[in-house]
């Protein structure tokens, strides 16, 4: 009996197939099976948002999705946010606004912020705080993150 399931996905615009045990989360598959370690594990129970990825247009905690559930889905991880031409404006804004200190939560914040600006190109401070309420940052107090998202919104519009 095989112990793993064959999963077909598109990740960051490319076809990716992998084998997942039934008990492996999508986060574990991304990190340990596929080698995309940009998504981070901070709690493994959906409370910190460091593993945020975009799954079929929705931001999810990839630690709360099973690897086998990703069958047939389109996934964007932090590794797919920049293009060969350069950084995404949100990434540039995070750098220019010093919106990261240790940087461990940054991939999750950038993936979540990208989804926000695609849904709401000119969010208020309150809307940004609401959209990012699922992502914990312990270093910054969120001030510079909120400013970076506002800055990116301004530059993208």
């Amino acid at each position, binding site marked *: 009996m095989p112990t793993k399931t064959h999963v077909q996905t598109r990740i960051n615009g490319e076809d990716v197939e992998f084998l997942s*045990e039934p*008990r492996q989360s999508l986060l574990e598959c991304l*990190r*340990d099976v596929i080698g*995309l*370690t*940009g*998504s*981070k*594990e*901070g*709690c*493994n*129970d959906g*409370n*910190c948002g*460091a593993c945020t990825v975009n799954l079929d247009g929705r931001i999810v905690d990839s630690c709360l999705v099973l690897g086998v559930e990703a069958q047939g889905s389109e996934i964007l*991880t*932090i*590794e797919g*946010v*920049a293009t060969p031409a350069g*950084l995404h404006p949100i*990434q540039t804004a*995070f*750098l*220019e*606004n*010093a919106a*990261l*200190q*240790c*940087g*461990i*939560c*940054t*991939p999750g914040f*950038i993936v979540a912020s990208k989804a926000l600006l695609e849904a709401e190109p000119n969010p208020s*401070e309150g809307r*940004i*705080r*609401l959209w*990012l*309420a*699922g*992502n*914990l*940052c*312990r*270093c*910054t*107090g*969120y*001030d*510079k*993150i*909120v400013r970076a998202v506002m800055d990116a919104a301004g530059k993208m519009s």
Partner: protein
Amino acid sequence: MTTTAYEPNVVLATETFDVVGTRPIRHDGTDKVTGRAEYGSDGQPVSVLYCKILRSPHAHARIKSVDTSKAEALDGVKAVVTGKDFPSSPPDEEWSGTTGTFKLKDLREHRLATKKVLYKGHPVAGVAAVNQHVAQEAIELIDVQYEPLPPIMTAPQGMAKGATLLHDDLFTEEAGEKGDTPSNLASHLQYKKGDIEKGFAEADVIIEREFNTATVHQGYIEPHSCTVHWNKDGKVHIWNSTQAPFDVRDMTAGILGLSSTDVRLTPKEIGGGFGGKWEPYGEPICALLSKKTGRPVHNALTRAEELESTGPTPGSYIKVKMGITNEGKMVAAQGHLAYEAGAYLGSPVDPGAQCIFAPYDIPNVLIDGYDVVVNKPKTAAYRAPGATNAAFASETVVDEFAEKLGIDPIELRLLNAAKEGTRRADGPVFPRVGCVEVLEAMRDHPHYSAPLEGPNRGRGVAIGFWFNVGLQSAANMNVNGDGTVTLTEGSPDIGGSRVGLAMQGAEVLGIPAEDVHPSVVDTDQIGFTAGSGGSRVTFATGWAVYEAASDIKRQLIERAALIWGVDAGDIEMEKGVVQSKSDPDLRFTFKELAAELDGSGGYVSGRGAVDPKGEGGAFAGLIVDVEADPDTGKVQVLRATVVQDAGKAIHPSYVEGQLQGGTAQGIGWGLNEEYFMDPEGRMANSTLLDYRMPIALDLPMIDTVIVEVANPGHPFGVRGVGEVNIISPPAALANALHRALDVRMEQLPMSPGNIMEAVWKKGK
């Protein structure tokens, strides 16, 4: 204030430089916004095994037996270890490092208990298996028989007569003497200044209050993580997430019975620490497992393991009695601080005791501090360790004085503020410090005079003092032919320190910050560098970089002299230009001279290794507005302005980030965060849903004012900025809550439940 219009972030600069004080992009930034940066768990070596740790379900118990046979027999398990696999030493053999002096046997028992478990989550055995799931199954097959004992959960409980003892070989240390009967009180310290009785006799108003603060956690988002390989040549290599590569190397070597440099530690990127990543947790266990299997072994803690078994900061019981004259002159202050050390001695009660009244010039002071072991995880440093608990007590009493005397709270603090020459109760006399300047900037900030209207709203202020530390650091710099300079150093970059260090080197050499390429290297590649903590990296490692760059500068002048055939004394180097003082035609830009190095004697390297003693103590204060719901006790923070003396802000954006981050942590500590312990001494809220750290929705923008009172003990005036900002928030929030709801909070956190208890108590 020099500004009239309101700005969210203000730098009150007193001296300007070319590079220092500007805001370049951090060198490690692109890797960190693209997911390429490798943190503790990222990128494991081929053939790695995964370690899980069996932990005690009891807060306090004797271990009767451990049977690992079923776990060893499980398919996929490669090795099982217990504390018996550590080497043994004489019972009193000690180990010393930057964190203190400890018995080696305690360091080993802390990592893997063999006799007693002293907190829920205390490690008992480690397993290495082909993956984490098999390792998890295996630890569940280990059979440990315990004899549970009554748990000690608070410092006063531990100090009570007849309390159950955690250790039968712990004797109270008091005034350099050891007691003769075992006790949970590890030490009692005392600081005295003047005559406390005389002081209270001179006072017109005396206030005495008692305070209790809950255990809280550093809460870094990246759990501890390490990979260890015990090579066949007897050398151990650690790759991990740590603030303190050399300190963890040395303690791990001590625990394993090795010489320091038998261990090589490669620090990966670190996902936060705040003091909590200064000692080894999984490293010694993975080392034993690697020795047994011959393969690298990886361990990453879960969030529950983080909360239940890595260093929180202590819960505490504090009593404060202060006396003041009707004119507002503080004349007496007495403090009794009892801090929970956790399972092994070493709470930060000493720094708490040294800081509690430090912002004020008070002639008569008596402070007693008690370090008490309890059945909670061994505490670790957390951002200005010990000082936040202490300031919550003293700064709310100062606020009560202001109210009673009808003096503005900032003016009252200014009347008593510590200055150059003020002697602290613990002995040191302040050099030039910025307490007055911080208070004046708070008073003059538009936030302080802005109207705050509406019911159940209040504004509070508080200030805090923290020492900052020096300690050893090293740096090497190499000039390249294209005019850039590589910089290697040993301070893990926890918040943008690479750029702050590169900038100091660039300033000396007169080149752009972007032309200095910084790298954090391993313990075999750089001289001893104490950890990234104590607000010390920009200060001490910055000084090492200053020395290395100055070394290069001297050599470049000598090289130009050689090339030009003139005396080196005739050459100067200013703003990146090397030129003759007498012949204007003899001139090299940095880039031009760098291109001449190959062929004129070779490239140039500079070295810096320092142990600076001139660390500058720092003051910070917070102005905070809150709205409290009188029916539910929920508190919303409406506005916050943090003011801090940075000495000199090398990169103001990252200094602002420290002020904002420390304030956010202080707000979490003040309002939400708490270890809920059940009656058996087990943490009942070990997830990030229930251990409630502030989220983006909880906080307003956090405005900053950077005050710059240059530290005479640093070439650019740096004081260090990482810690002092966490001290004020709980007290400032309590003082704001007093104005919002007319209650004085004497307990942390000021959670809805605790606030309602206070409201109801007052209503009775």
